[in-house]
């Protein structure tokens, strides 16, 4: 059940992110990328399989945990991805700020000097 709700939510995040990316405002570009990266994080988390209340702990005396247990690896990957995404977004916000100062406009259509 929770998978279906999360799947719908991931779809919503991707859709909203794409919508923001396609707008002409620089700020919405930032928001779009944030939403997309959160959508991807949640996707990794959900696709790895959800299992509540079964931590992957090994009982004393055995060498493998009693199945079924939650897979900790997707969560480790999501943590890594969140940290990376955080750094990139922080950089991107600073870059957008500088670019906005240099170009003097928030409209992406004014960013056409280097185009092809």
């Amino acid at each position, binding site marked *: 059940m929770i998978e279906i709700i999360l799947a719908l939510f991931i779809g919503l995040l991707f859709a909203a992110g794409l919508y923001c990316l396609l707008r002409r405002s620089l700020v919405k570009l930032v928001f779009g990328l944030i939403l997309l990266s959160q959508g991807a994080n949640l996707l990794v988390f959900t*696709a790895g399989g959800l299992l509540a209340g079964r931590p992957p702990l090994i009982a004393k005396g055995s060498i493998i945990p009693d199945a079924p247990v939650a897979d900790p690896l997707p969560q480790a990957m999501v943590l890594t991805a969140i940290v990376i995404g955080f750094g990139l977004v922080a950089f991107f916000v600073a870059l957008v700020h500088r670019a906005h100062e240099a170009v003097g406009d928030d409209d992406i259509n004014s960013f056409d000097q280097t185009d092809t």
Partner: protein
Amino acid sequence: MNGLVIVLPLLIPLFGAVLLLGGARSIRFQRVGAIAIAALLMAAAAWLVLEVDLHGVIAVQIGDWAAPFGITLVADRLGAIMVAVSAFMGLAVGIFAVSDIDDERVKKKFFPVFFVLLFGVNGAFLTGDLFNLYVWFEVMLIASFVLIGLGGLKDELEGAIKYVSLNLFSSVLFLAAVGILYGEVGTLNMADLAVKLENYPEVELIVSTSMLLLVAFCIKAAVFPFFFWLPASYHTPPAAVSAIFAGLLTKVGVYALIRSQTLIFRPIFDEVQVLLIWLAVLTMIVGVLGAARHFEMRRILSFHIVSQIGYMVLALAFMTPLALAAAIFYVVHHIIVKTNLFLVSGIVLRKKGSADLAKIGGLYKSAPWLAVLFFIPAFSLGGIPPLSGFWAKFAVVQSGLEVGQWVAVGAALFVGILTLFSMTKIWGEAFWKKQPESTGDFVPEDRPVPVFMVAPVVLLAAATLFIGLYGNGLFAFSERAAEQLFDNREYISTVLPQEGEGIAR
């Protein structure tokens, strides 16, 4: 000992960057240190190639957790030669940057970031795990983001916005594909994935996931129709930055394409082949036509990156041992030549104050040595024998004829002619025609060029000539590397000893 040889190409740039950060006050220390570290990295990379060529695939499990659970570093011949070429470019561009990068950018920590970039690139070539590949991509990207926007000029920032947004978008796709793949197969170790996907029942799921990865890698590699970020940004930063970008970054995308298609998604390659061939053909054609339209040296060269990427993807798409050898040879040749052309454009920019072909001219008369130095990489790019580009194109065309892809081969030859047209355009405008009268606010100059900018160009031109005249050695190496890719049992059994000889292809 085995571990050291594969870890050194990562440790040297990492600790180099830390060391340079420590001595950030002294600009002189930054410049001397950068050349020393780059030379050290070059030596380590050469050692890696030697070891891998003599003793086969090397795999190291960092932290001693056995694959597929641990962090795996793998070097096969393809990975090793890529590390070596990128170290070579690091050295050449590092020397060039000593003169090209001004004091202010050095104070803003240009050189530490430069080595973080090389760190990420080498990591991407050496990792044996898909999620780690994602992380290495991010290391490389964040460094490149900083480098491209470091100057803070208007054009740089504008180019950086385009570059950063599209690359972040491709990272999102990459991460999503990694997550789905893990959910389906339960592993991300590339060798383990190859084993598990060998007889996977639900092919459609894997094909759709592989498409997600394909798009992510195609954005990084600037394949049609995902290339628009490249010509919009590569001409904005200083020449040293665009040279290292032009040489290495898109080629990491090509490497990821080669690795994923030959190893992970090999069982479903037949479903992808036609798509890849057409993507490659369109990349070649659109890239070269875009270049024909432009009149600024660096913009022309940026579009040629796109068109040349097409050749490499085309060779990969043929998927025969000869074609893979051609792809590897092409990548090596292209990295050297393209970096060199961007460095030459940097010299022109320094000498004349502009690289706009309408404003400059007469370089053949005022600097005949520069004309020769441009001639070698430019006509190698166009595929004139006996320069390296001829053999690269020849191998691609021959492998295409072997598999009977007449249309693609025809397109490759046609694009070759148009490439030559672009190069002769630069040659005619910048070198042969007289210096035009000054127009508007632009006053043509004739400034001296420091020796640190000329030396790397000479070095790379010599390498191009050498590959052209004595290409046998490199081509034989590429063929051995292609064998390793085509028959991936050695790769898999080195990473996963327990799989042993159990895999038959």
